[in-house]
């Protein structure tokens, strides 16, 4: 899939995120939007998966360690064909299978339940270890928030993954710089993120989270890296694509009202227009 196609898909994913959160009147748009390009690349290009067979043996796995950005994962899965895009409007509603945080038992395509920060990465490490024990070649991807890495368990998992040389594991940190209480370097700075993962025996790559060439190159580099896990620190804009949400900590866990929803969808429609022009 070329970059233009990927951009179009990513914009559809963003529309789904905004629509789901607006409909739920709750949820986490900021960190869903910042990672939308990565979600898109993973599910439309990178991973060995089959939406018609979500439990396919030896498929690649994805664990959303920052589980609160479930709208991003759900919108990607819906747009990829795991379930209906229309169902995104049932997010967080009583009786819906689209729980507030990922639930592997009820949501097609979700490989692990998550949401309590710091826990997802350990389960991803367990999956990668399982592949190694059985000499299987599937790969495991996990996405963490930059605030999430304040959790000590992340570093227990990183130490183990580095020690076990799990080169089938890719840890992606969404470095949008913001958490609920403000800027991460004001709340309790996790910087330097890259140096920390290097010290835990990871191969570390810094990229622009909204550049598909960079995402593609980093994931290829991860595959080529042997004897150590890879950490991709992706520098992103929280709320990316929606003008009034970009770079605002306040949009971490808040839903747009009707008026804001209209503006957000207009912003994304404008991106569609620009992409159409680019295509022509």
């Amino acid at each position, binding site marked *: 899939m070329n970059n233009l196609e990927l951009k179009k898909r990513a914009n559809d994913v963003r529309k789904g995120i905004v629509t789901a959160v607006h409909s739920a009147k709750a949820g986490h748009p900021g960190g869903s939007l910042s990672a939308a390009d990565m979600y898109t690349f993973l599910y439309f290009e990178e991973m060995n998966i089959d939406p018609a067979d979500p439990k396919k043996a030896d498929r690649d*796995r994805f664990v959303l360690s920052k589980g609160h950005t479930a709208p991003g994962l759900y919108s990607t899965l819906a747009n990829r064909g795991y379930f209906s895009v229309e169902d995104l409007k049932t997010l967080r509603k009583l009786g819906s299978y689209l729980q507030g945080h990922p639930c592997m038992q009820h949501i097609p395509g979700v490989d692990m339940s998550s*949401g309590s920060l710091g*826990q*997802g990465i*350990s389960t991803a490490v367990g*999956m990668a*270890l399982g*592949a190694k*024990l059985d000499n299987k070649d599937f790969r495991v991807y996990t996405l963490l928030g930059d605030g999430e890495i304040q959790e000590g368990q992340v570093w227990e998992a990183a130490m183990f993954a580095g020690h076990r040389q799990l080169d089938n594991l890719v840890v992606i940190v969404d470095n949008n710089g913001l958490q609920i209480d403000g800027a991460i370097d004001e709340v309790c700075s996790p910087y330097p993120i890259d140096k920390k993962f290097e010290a835990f025996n990871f191969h570390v790559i810094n990229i622009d989270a909204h550049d598909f060439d960079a995402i593609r190159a980093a994931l290829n580099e991860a595959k080529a890296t042997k004897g150590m896990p890879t950490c991709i620190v992706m520098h992103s804009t929280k709320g990316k694509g929606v003008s009034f949400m970009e770079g605002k900590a306040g949009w971490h866990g808040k839903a747009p009202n009707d008026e804001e929803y209209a503006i957000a969808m207009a912003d994304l429609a404008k991106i569609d227009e620009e992409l159409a022009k680019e295509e022509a």
Partner: protein
Amino acid sequence: MADVKKIATRESYGNALKELGAEFPDLVVLDADLAEATKTGVFKKAFPERHIDCGIAECNMVGIAAGLATVGKIPFVSSFAMFAAGRAFEQVRNSVGYPHLNVKIGATHAGITVGEDGASHQCNEDLALMRTIPGMVVMCPSDDIEAKAAVRAAIEHEGPVYIRFGRAAVPVFNDTPDFKFEIGKGRVVREGKDVTIVATGICVDSAIGAAEKLAADGIDAEVINICTIKPLDEELILASAKKTGKVVTVEEHSVIGGLGSAVCDCLAEKLPTPVKKIGMYDVFGESGSAAALVEKYGLDAAGVYKSVKEWM
């Protein structure tokens, strides 16, 4: 009584894993730098590639086990009860319990019989914690025979299981030809008509000893061994309570939330019956030998006898 065989149930745990390793190729064992103490070392020796030492990081260990379970492994997480159920409680709840993954937790060094290490390591809360997790099977075997049977049953059961093992050597008394083990089934180990003593773990032996002393006083006690705290064998307990009209519970655990509470939950709803709970009464333990502690806190046969006698 000179030649009663004594084995610590943590030994039984390690031995059972080793014995079952060949039969269940997906069985893997995880430790957090305590393989020497949890007695999984024998498994490690037999199946080195299937033993995973996670270092001193119990929360991560539980998460790794969850991940392994999603790719078809049957992981046994081994650590002291304090760390497996206590420190990693939320990981057990959210990474194992909520997705109902096939992870088994082998928690050794439970209760006050940890002994000399003292209160920081004597977990009297694990049964209470684990009981609250939906779908979690909670077992507390009473001797070597039952502990090994519980490990096999846990492997054959699909879903999360918590098994509590002890540090101290305890008498083997289930080596009878009619011994059968099933998750969720208790066993009447002594029939009686005056009072029902429901016990779990190492306290089953104390309850049997107490029943013998009570018999000398003309009190005919029925003793029920409850290995599976959850799901509880309510049918067995209700039938016995109906017969005797008085129930005593005995456990090496806090009286808050463990076997005593489980029995009360059942009786209060289905057959209100007077209950005397014997266990740790909202206190921390302390350093001392296992035998001295069991005596001090009234969990040996003499202590159980005294409590029952006074209560009746």
